[in-house]
């Protein structure tokens, strides 16, 4: 029964959804302190290339490679974040967009390391590495009634799911704390926040760096799910796509990022028959959404109403 349901295709789609959720959150976090970063695609690329190169050339364990990828992206986030503090609004957006492009061009041109536009092949695939590892202990997927490639993708999805839940947990807890209050006060009124004793430099760099770290993490995971990466995976289009995930779902609440990434990754798969017009529809949806509901599908008011519904139901009970 289990073996029939577990279809690697579904699992693959699910794993892309989960990676996209991480990416959407990587835009959401800096945005929660009022910083619009379009550099996610670039940070994602840094994470992907770092982890891929480390695992290919130095044969280090995947988990360390992935962490290293995320950390390098995070450190780059700090390096970029500090000077970018002088910029706000659209200036920051353009500077980070530019940064992403510069990173991509470096990937294309630094051929000795990245193999240029041909990309990196033979990146260890996460699920398969784990399978091999488990086999070392005499484990066989057949023991739990699975084919090995079902096992491989199931493992990937489970790991990603775990990471996504951990990330959401992290962000939500942070949000409902002193740190989160500081971030949202900076987003609402930077000057007033500072005069309440909040070190805005610290918190802005913090959230920017967290965003970069998450994007790098997502990129590293992407590399080890795909097994192959090339600079075109991290282009302007990717940056815009990630931004749209967040904005579509609602950029004020984390649920918006989760929903946007899930919905917009699924739609093209489910509606393959309209795939010809997919981007045209994307464009129109964005325009209409901004005109009708610029804060995205979910916002605080909607969430409060949902919570209120729940509460009133509870009252009846």
């Amino acid at each position: 029964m289990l073996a029939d349901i577990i279809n690697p295709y579904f699992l693959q789609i699910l794993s892309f959804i989960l990676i996209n959720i991480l990416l959407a959150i990587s835009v959401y976090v800096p945005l929660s302190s009022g910083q619009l970063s379009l550099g996610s695609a670039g940070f994602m690329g840094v994470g992907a290339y770092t982890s891929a190169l480390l695992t290919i050339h130095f044969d280090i364990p995947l988990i360390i490679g992935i962490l290293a990828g995320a950390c390098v992206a995070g450190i780059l986030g700090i390096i970029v974040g500090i000077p970018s503090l002088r910029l706000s609004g659209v200036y920051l957006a353009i500077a980070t967009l530019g940064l992403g492009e510069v990173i991509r061009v470096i990937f294309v041109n630094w051929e000795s390391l990245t193999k240029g536009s041909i990309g990196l092949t033979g990146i260890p695939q996460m699920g398969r590495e784990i399978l091999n590892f488990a086999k070392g202990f005499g484990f066989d997927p057949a023991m739990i009634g699975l084919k090995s490639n079902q096992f491989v993708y199931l493992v990937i999805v489970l790991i990603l799911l775990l990471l996504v839940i951990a990330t959401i947990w992290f962000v939500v807890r942070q949000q409902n704390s002193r740190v989160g209050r500081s971030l949202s006060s900076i987003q609402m009124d930077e000057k007033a926040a500072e005069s309440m004793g909040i070190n805005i430099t610290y918190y802005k760099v913090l959230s920017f760096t967290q965003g970069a770290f998450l994007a790098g993490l997502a990129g590293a995971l992407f590399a080890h799910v795909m097994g192959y990466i090339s600079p075109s995976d991290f282009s302007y289009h990717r940056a815009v796509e990630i931004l749209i995930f967040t904005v579509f779902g609602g950029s004020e609440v984390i649920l918006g990022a989760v929903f946007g990434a899930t919905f917009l990754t699924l739609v093209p798969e489910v509606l393959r028959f309209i795939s010809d017009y997919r981007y045209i529809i994307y464009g129109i949806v964005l325009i209409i959404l901004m005109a009708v509901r610029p804060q995205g599908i979910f916002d605080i008011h909607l969430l409060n109403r949902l919570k209120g519904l729940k509460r009133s139901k509870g009252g009846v009970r």
Partner: protein
Amino acid sequence: MLLEQLVNGITLGSIYAIVALGFTLVFGVLGIINMAHGEIFMVGAFVGVMTTSVLGWPLWLAFIASIVVTGILGYLLERITLRPLRGKKGVSHLAPLISTIGVSILLENLSHHIFGAGNQPFRSSFAEISIEIGSITIYLVQIVIFAISILLMIGLTIWLSKTKAGKALRATAENLETASILGVDTKKIITLTVIIASAMGGIAGILVGMAFNSVSPQMGLSMGLKGLAIIILGGMGNVKGAMAGGLILGLSETFLVAFGDSGYRDAIAFIMIIFILLLRPQGIFGSKIAEGR
């Protein structure tokens, strides 16, 4: 070779400048980055191709057609995507950015469906006329492009400083509310601005088609991104800055290819703006302190 590269750089720079003028005008008045400007430029180029190659119209008519079509697009852009966002409570500064990204995606893919993915040749006998000066060949188109960009810049400067409409526009740019209290029909002024900016994109499109003989749905994106870089380089909302920024970028790209590594050509614009933003956020020619809107 230096002279030839200089001509190449100035030609490219002049086109960048015209594109950037449109960007800077919209930003100056509305404080909005119009991400669809590159695609409007692309549509202008396609109108040029279609009217000259397919319908066989003369060049001057193609110019008018292109201006008209992109002007109408500008009107629609303002009417459908920008106006609904203006003055609405709770609309962040992100909304127009994303809305215009929506327009750019729409326009790119629409023309992809209509015209196909490939390059369209721009056939015009005008583009073949050339002059030999010493050892180098200069095409008349190159001179025309340079002249048009200068004329547009001067025209725009005069129009902004001398005419009533221009003054109203500047007042609107200074402060929307004050201008409307002073009796300026800001709605009209804004619409006019977006139309003029878009029409300039159309002109740039047709000029690129003529100069480089290539028009494709993807050309808007890279031009749009470059235009964005230029207005930061020259200072947001600054007409002379846009012109100078365009020339600087055109020349630096050309000379990077001539004396450096052509692989980094697309990155130079962004490397420059990253430095500019960090060292002098108001741009080379800007005087206003960069302030988030």
